[in-house]
């Protein structure tokens, strides 16, 4: 078929086609002497046929017919669509999360051409030293541009207003490589040392009232004067997941923000700036990777440093392979669970379809005997499935557009607003389309083929009911797996509330003086903090004051590797620098030894048993790799996250540093509001924020509970779906056996016997399915171990509870149709056919 013919057919005949043909035929009739022309309608149809694609027309007919059939069965249509929306919508949501953090590039200019560049350091992929980045940026030929960023907490002062914010230090070419334009002013970053700043759109609106003449104004960032040169375009957040307040050229910013780190721009050991770039048109990431690796090797050699490998990935938030390796298994576990739910939904719809096919077997048999091809009828039935799938897909797009944002906002709040938008992009659409197509065929093809066979063969009844029971059994098994998971997680949820934190949070508040962004040097920090600590402990209503660099459950950690000198194994521990009264203030008991002085350390029980496993007394030993001796052992307490696994902690003593936070135990809650003001009135270099310590504990419990709740919610959905399936199958079993039951009742069967007859048939399937499911759950639950807070994956309580819930639900679902069977009037049923 040539292109013109294709196009003509697509367009269809001209509007005057019928009229032309009629007039033409009339002329023919007259010319041939008024002879009768035979079947005119047939001629017209054949003539029109030339203009259409047969298959396309048939497809339209199938779709129209399918729509009519579905509209005639609203109960089936709505149930099936909802089941599919649950299945596809959840998968789309999970994929949307995955897509946003792992696949979709940051929304910068021409994002498709941008790449993230990682550097290997000690077996981990991280950022680059400034010098290496600078060398690569100047010499690369495969990248059009290459920019570096690094985030800092900053303190901004504009006129009388001072606030803390997120700042991003960038190489001067940042906006040239990634910028999407400016809402006011321009980039104006002439070099990395220029004292400049570009505001984010949000900051411009909230802090500068959208003043169009903001460019040229001066602000103070961490005590250093910077001139605003412009405002980034609305919605531009650069390459970070949080929303930055401003971008600052790296050298000028670093001078203010990393006091005492003057080697930042010159040291090859410095770590790290995050690097991203834009590929030259026509260059593949592989080519660029080869070039950068060669240059990195040469450069490191020229400055006599170890070679550093370079890796190019997508420019997505979690593209870093070291991070991705941690996140991927979690995604896979969630995706597996949601795919199971989709499978359940498909099995459900397939069962409903097969059930309908029984009632339609006469229609199908009639159509077959009238000469319709089998394939044609299968296609017709598949069209119905595709319509259902399409409706479900459209609704699922809505679910995926809304649900991730809602989850982030309400269920898993991270505190800071995220720059990630979780929008549906082409990958999500493609995923939904693929899933819908696969699901439609999965739940459509089997019933369609069965019903065609059923209408023609005589073996149908048994094989069809076997198929239905197999589907039901699979459904119950999947549901059992999910339910076991859910009961385990629900048990864990209770467990989370009971986990002992190991410290007394009640009556303690955390006062963060935010010294890091004050411009105070590391050496001066103790002298700046000292008066504050003294004055606070004298404040009426304050019972005790201590300081620490890491607040328990405060979302920060400082993890170091310690090599056990005897076993040579590396141990990871969390290090915090505290004042001696830290332990008494938080009621963390010292179980052995004491505190001694500044040159000693305290270890947690778990760290002690890791370093001195053979019952050796740690007290007085030199701590591996340090000069300090171990003075005491503290009881375990949670720091990083709520867990039943004790976390190895190393406590060093300090008189305060830039990241010190002040713990205040109080007797009078009314004073809390005054403490920040009081601290600021003492010294303008403090910009304190205050949080009650129980709030950190609550947040940790909330996050853990929410993860469990989401998983439990998924399983509840699965249970609902399985019940719908059981109900459907039971109902059709009854419908199929109406005559048989009628006869039994006429012959004197009692209600109980009939009830049992119907229940038995389904219970056998349910029990078999549940058994397989629980065996599957024993394996699947291992995936959940980290969320179980100490409950064993094979916990018998959870398994029994899950089985009980499932069986109760199954009996309830099968009971209603069974009840109906007992209400059968033999006289009516026997007359029925």
């Amino acid at each position: 078929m040539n292109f013109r013919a294709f196009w003509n057919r697509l367009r269809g005949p001209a509007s005057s086609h019928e009229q032309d043909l009629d007039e033409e035929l009339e002329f023919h009739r007259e010319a041939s002497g008024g002879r009768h022309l035979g079947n005119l309608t047939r001629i017209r149809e054949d003539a029109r046929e030339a203009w259409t694609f047969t298959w396309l027309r048939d497809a339209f007919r199938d779709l129209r017919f399918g729509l009519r059939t579905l509209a005639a069965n609203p109960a089936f249509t709505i149930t099936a669509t909802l089941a599919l929306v649950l299945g596809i919508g959840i998968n789309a949501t999970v994929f949307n999360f995955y897509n946003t953090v792992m696949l979709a590039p940051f929304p910068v200019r021409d994002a498709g051409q941008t790449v993230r560049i990682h550097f290997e350091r000690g077996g981990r992929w991280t950022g680059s030293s400034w010098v290496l980045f600078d060398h690569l940026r100047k010499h690369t030929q495969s990248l059009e541009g290459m920019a570096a960023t690094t985030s800092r907490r900053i303190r901004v002062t504009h006129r009388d207003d001072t606030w803390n914010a997120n700042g991003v230090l960038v190489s001067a070419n940042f906006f040239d490589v990634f910028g999407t334009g400016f809402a006011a002013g321009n980039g104006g970053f002439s070099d990395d040392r220029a004292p400049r700043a570009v505001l984010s759109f949000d900051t411009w609106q909230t802090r500068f009232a959208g003043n169009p003449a903001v460019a040229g104004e001066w602000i103070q960032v961490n005590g250093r004067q910077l001139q605003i040169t412009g405002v980034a375009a609305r919605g531009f957040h650069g390459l970070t997941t949080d929303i930055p307040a401003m971008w600052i050229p790296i050298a000028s910013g670093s001078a203010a923000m990393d006091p005492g780190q003057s080697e930042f721009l010159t040291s090859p050991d410095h770590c790290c700036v995050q690097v991203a770039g834009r590929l030259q048109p026509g260059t593949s990431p592989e080519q660029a990777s080869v070039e950068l690796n060669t240059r990195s090797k040469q450069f490191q050699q020229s400055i006599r440093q170890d070679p550093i490998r370079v890796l190019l990935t997508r420019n997505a938030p979690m593209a870093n392979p070291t991070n991705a390796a941690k996140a991927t298994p979690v995604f896979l576990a969630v995706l597996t669970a949601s795919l199971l739910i989709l499978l359940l939904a498909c099995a459900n719809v397939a069962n409903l379809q097969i059930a309908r096919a029984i009632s339609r077997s006469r229609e199908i048999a009639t159509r077959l005997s009238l000469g319709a091809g089998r394939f044609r009828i299968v296609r017709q039935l598949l069209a119905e499935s595709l319509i259902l799938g399409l409706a479900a897909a459209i609704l699922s797009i809505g679910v995926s557009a809304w649900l991730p944002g809602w989850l982030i906002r309400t269920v898993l709040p991270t505190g800071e607003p995220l720059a990630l938008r979780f929008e549906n992009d082409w990958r999500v659409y493609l995923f939904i389309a693929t899933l819908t197509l696969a699901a439609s065929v999965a739940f459509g093809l089997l019933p369609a083929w069965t019903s065609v066979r059923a209408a023609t063969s005589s073996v149908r009844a048994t094989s069809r009911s076997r198929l239905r029971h197999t589907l039901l059994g699979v459904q119950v098994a999947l549901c059992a797996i999910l339910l076991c998971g859910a009961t385990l997680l629900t048990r864990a949820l209770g467990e989370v509330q009971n986990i002992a934190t190991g410290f007394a949070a009640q009556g303690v508040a955390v006062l963060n003086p935010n010294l890091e962004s004050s411009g105070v040097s590391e050496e001066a920090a103790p002298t700046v903090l000292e008066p504050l600590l003294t004055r606070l402990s004298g404040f009426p209503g304050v019972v005790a004051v201590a300081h620490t660099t890491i607040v328990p459950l405060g979302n920060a950690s400082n993890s170091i590797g310690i090599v056990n000198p005897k076993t040579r194994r590396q141990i990871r521990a969390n290090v915090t620098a505290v004042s001696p009264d830290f332990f008494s203030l938080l009621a963390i008991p010292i179980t052995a030894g004491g505190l001694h002085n500044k040159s000693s350390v305290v270890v947690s029980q778990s760290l002690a048993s890791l370093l001195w496993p053979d019952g050796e007394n740690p007290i007085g030993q030199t701590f591996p790799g340090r000069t300090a001796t171990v003075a005491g052992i503290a009881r375990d307490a949670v720091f990083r996250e709520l867990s039943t696994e004790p976390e190895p902690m190393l406590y060093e003593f300090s008189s305060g540093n830039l990241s010190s936070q002040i713990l205040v135990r109080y007797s009078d809650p009314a004073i809390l509001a005054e403490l920040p003001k009081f601290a600021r009135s003492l010294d303008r270099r403090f910009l304190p924020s205050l949080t009650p310590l129980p709030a950190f504990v609550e947040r940790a419990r909330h996050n853990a509970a929410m993860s469990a709740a989401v998983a439990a919610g998924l399983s509840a959905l699965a249970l609902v779906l399985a019940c719908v399936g059981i109900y459907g199958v039971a109902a059709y079993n009854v419908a199929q056996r109406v005559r048989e039951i009628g006869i039994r009742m006429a012959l004197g069967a009692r209600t109980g016997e009939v009830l049992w007859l119907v229940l038995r048939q389904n219970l056998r399937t349910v029990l078999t399915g549940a058994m397989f499911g629980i065996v599957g759950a024993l394996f699947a639950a291992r995936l959940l171990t980290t969320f179980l807070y100490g409950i064993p994956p094979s916990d018998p309580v959870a398994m029994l509870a899950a089985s009980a819930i499932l069986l109760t639900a199954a009996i309830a679902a099968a009971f209603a149709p069974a009840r109906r069977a007992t209400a059968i009037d033999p006289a009516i049923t026997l007359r029925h056919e």
Partner: protein
Amino acid sequence: MPQPDLLPGTLDLLVLKTISRGSLHGYGIAQYLLQISDSVLQVGEGSLYPALQRLLVNGWAEAEWRQSETGRRARYYTITTAGKKRLAAEEAQFEAMVGAIHMVLRGRTA
């Protein structure tokens, strides 16, 4: 009625050949085929008009309403450049096919 023994696709070729001699209306085409084949090819309307539509769809012919010799309006079909190319190709193919069939019928080995 369509000729049951006509090879598939041949009618389109015959119609195309007919209008390649000059524009003609449907009735004229049928008459011409009848005369030139000594009344063997009686092309019925049921085959002729769908065939003409196929030629239109494929862009091998164009149709136009004109005054006929009897003074009545009639739809005239004219071959297009694409149609001429197609005709040449089909003719060659048909000759080859007929030749081949001929050889088989005469039982001559090639």
